[in-house]
């Protein structure tokens, strides 16, 4: 019988996280404080992060011990199983071997607890009593709520109002774990009050929610703030995943030729990929692909600025073209050079040529998710569908080239609380084609009644 799942015993759970900063070909430099012009230091971040996490943020150590208390909680779902996707392989008629790491088995349903648990732990050790955060659809908020429950910490989540109203199940999950989740903008902070004064019906935004969460941490007693992606210590905690993958691939008797992960802020991708990036730095030949949503091609052609490296305040030049449905996008690999909100380490590794970025359009991702559900059974989070879409592309390429490649991808979470997105796809409400004119006018009518910026003048379609 074929071996479908590759398990690791709990005794094989990694005891250390891997810190990519120790091996970066291009060392990361701290950004400059806008006020002082000096590198941002620990004291600048101390109002919102405990010192033990700030130390991890800048640590040059290659491996950092995972505390015993964190390991105990990790064992609730870790080590996570690695699967061989035989059914998907057969469906695609590919000679490629496809493996996926199932990070959806955590109680919160995603990879996010890999960092929420240690962040809650280090806060607890540092004397924090209350942690604040922001969340969009709620994946991060629910992971942090669960972690805070384990360590007896109060958890305050500012959830973007439009998501709060659309995603009640994630909110209920947070509340089940004991978090206090409010719609942002809220009346609880000056940042929220200011927005509501201008527009009582504001649907909120992540920017507003972050402002509220940071303000709440700075002004609250014994309070700190927690972020679920982008920062170095978040990437560090996630590497427990990739370190397990290395052991499981060894058990399978394979080594990946291709590693794929979806990449928004970069944490799930980094978690799976960074230990293999180290192998690549040391001479292994691996194609490591970060998959992101398709972006406007005109914004990917010009000079680029990077979130991480903007210490000299390079302004991105955005040569704008008139685009329409007839426009044929440039090869999207160029898109990999422009990242809003992606982890600096991931961005730098792309620049260094150790990772490449690919983009896929929305409908292709959902179609891939449907294919995966109908072959392997699991319903993926829509973000995870980006990785699956790229896996399918690579598997078909392997078929066309007649190569038996080994593909490993990170199945970062299930989509069981994202069924509305699948419903929208299945009913044809999501699209990546030209918007019909009546739909444009309907959308513009929707915003007609909303407050407009000064000097507003309506456009013509």
């Amino acid at each position, binding site marked *: 019988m074929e071996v479908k799942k590759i398990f690791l015993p709990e005794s094989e759970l990694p005891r250390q996280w891997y810190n990519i900063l120790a091996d970066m070909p291009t060392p990361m430099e701290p*950004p400059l404080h*806008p006020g002082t012009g000096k590198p*941002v230091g620990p004291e600048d*971040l101390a109002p919102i992060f405990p010192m033990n996490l700030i130390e991890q943020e800048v640590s040059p150590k290659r491996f950092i011990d995972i505390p015993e208390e964190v390991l105990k909680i990790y064992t609730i779902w870790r080590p996570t199983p690695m699967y061989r996707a035989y059914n998907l392989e057969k469906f695609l008629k590919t000679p490629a071997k496809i493996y996926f790491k199932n990070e959806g088995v955590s109680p919160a349903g995603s990879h996010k607890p890999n960092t929420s648990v240690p962040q809650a732990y280090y806060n607890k050790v540092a004397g924090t009593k209350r942690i604040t955060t922001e969340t*969009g*659809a709620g*994946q991060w908020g629910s992971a942090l709520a669960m972690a805070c429950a384990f360590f007896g910490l109060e958890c305050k989540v500012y959830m*973007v109002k*439009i998501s709060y109203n659309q995603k009640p199940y994630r909110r209920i999950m947070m509340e089940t774990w004991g978090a206090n989740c409010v719609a942002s903008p809220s009346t609880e*902070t*000056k940042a929220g009050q200011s927005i509501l004064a201008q527009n009582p019906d504001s*649907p909120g*935004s992540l*920017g507003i929610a972050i*402002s509220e969460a*940071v*303000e709440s*941490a*700075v*002004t609250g007693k014994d309070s700190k703030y927690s*972020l679920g992606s*982008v*920062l170095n210590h978040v990437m560090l905690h996630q590497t427990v995943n990739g370190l397990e993958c290395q052991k499981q691939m060894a058990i399978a008797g394979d080594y990946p030729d291709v590693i794929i992960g979806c990449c928004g802020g970069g944490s799930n991708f980094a978690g799976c990929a960074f230990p293999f990036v180290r192998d690549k730095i040391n001479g292994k030949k691996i194609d490591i692909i970060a998959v992101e*949503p*398709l972006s*406007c091609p005109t*914004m990917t052609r010009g000079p680029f600025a*990077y*979130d*991480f*490296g*903007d210490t000299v305040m*390079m*302004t*991105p030049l*955005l040569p*704008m073209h*008139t*685009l*329409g*449905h007839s426009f044929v*996008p440039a090869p999207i690999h160029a898109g990999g050079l422009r990242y*809003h*909100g992606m982890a600096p380490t991931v961005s730098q590794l792309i620049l260094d040529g150790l990772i490449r970025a690919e983009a896929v359009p929305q409908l292709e991702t959902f179609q891939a998710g449907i294919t995966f559900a109908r072959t392997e059974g699991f319903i993926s989070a829509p973000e995870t569908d980006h990785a699956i879409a790229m896996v399918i592309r690579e598997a078909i390429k392997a078929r066309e080239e007649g190569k038996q490649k080994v593909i490993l991808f990170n199945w970062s979470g299930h989509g069981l609380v994202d069924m509305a997105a699948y419903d*929208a796809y299945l009913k044809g*409400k*999501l*699209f*990546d084609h030209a*918007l019909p*004119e009546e739909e444009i006018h309907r*959308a513009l009518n*929707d*915003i007609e009644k*909303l407050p407009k*910026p000064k*000097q507003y*003048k309506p*456009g013509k*379609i």
Partner: protein
Amino acid sequence: MIRCRRLGNPVAFSYCRIENKGLPCSMIMDCWYDHFMIEDFLRQELTPDEWDRVFNQPLKPKVLSLVELIEQAKKAKEETQ
């Protein structure tokens, strides 16, 4: 509707148009360029200053954004006291 890559749930164009305190989300071009002539539309909607504020601002490292928010929050705290 499209899926918002920031929030993780479906949103209508009307949300993207006002997401940034009444101005468009800075990723609106990325998300909508393939659906209609979004640049033409926004060029008519926004003043040059507003355009610059949305699309031509230097990208900030996350850590810097957090440092700025900390400073704002400290001021809010002082005002309250």
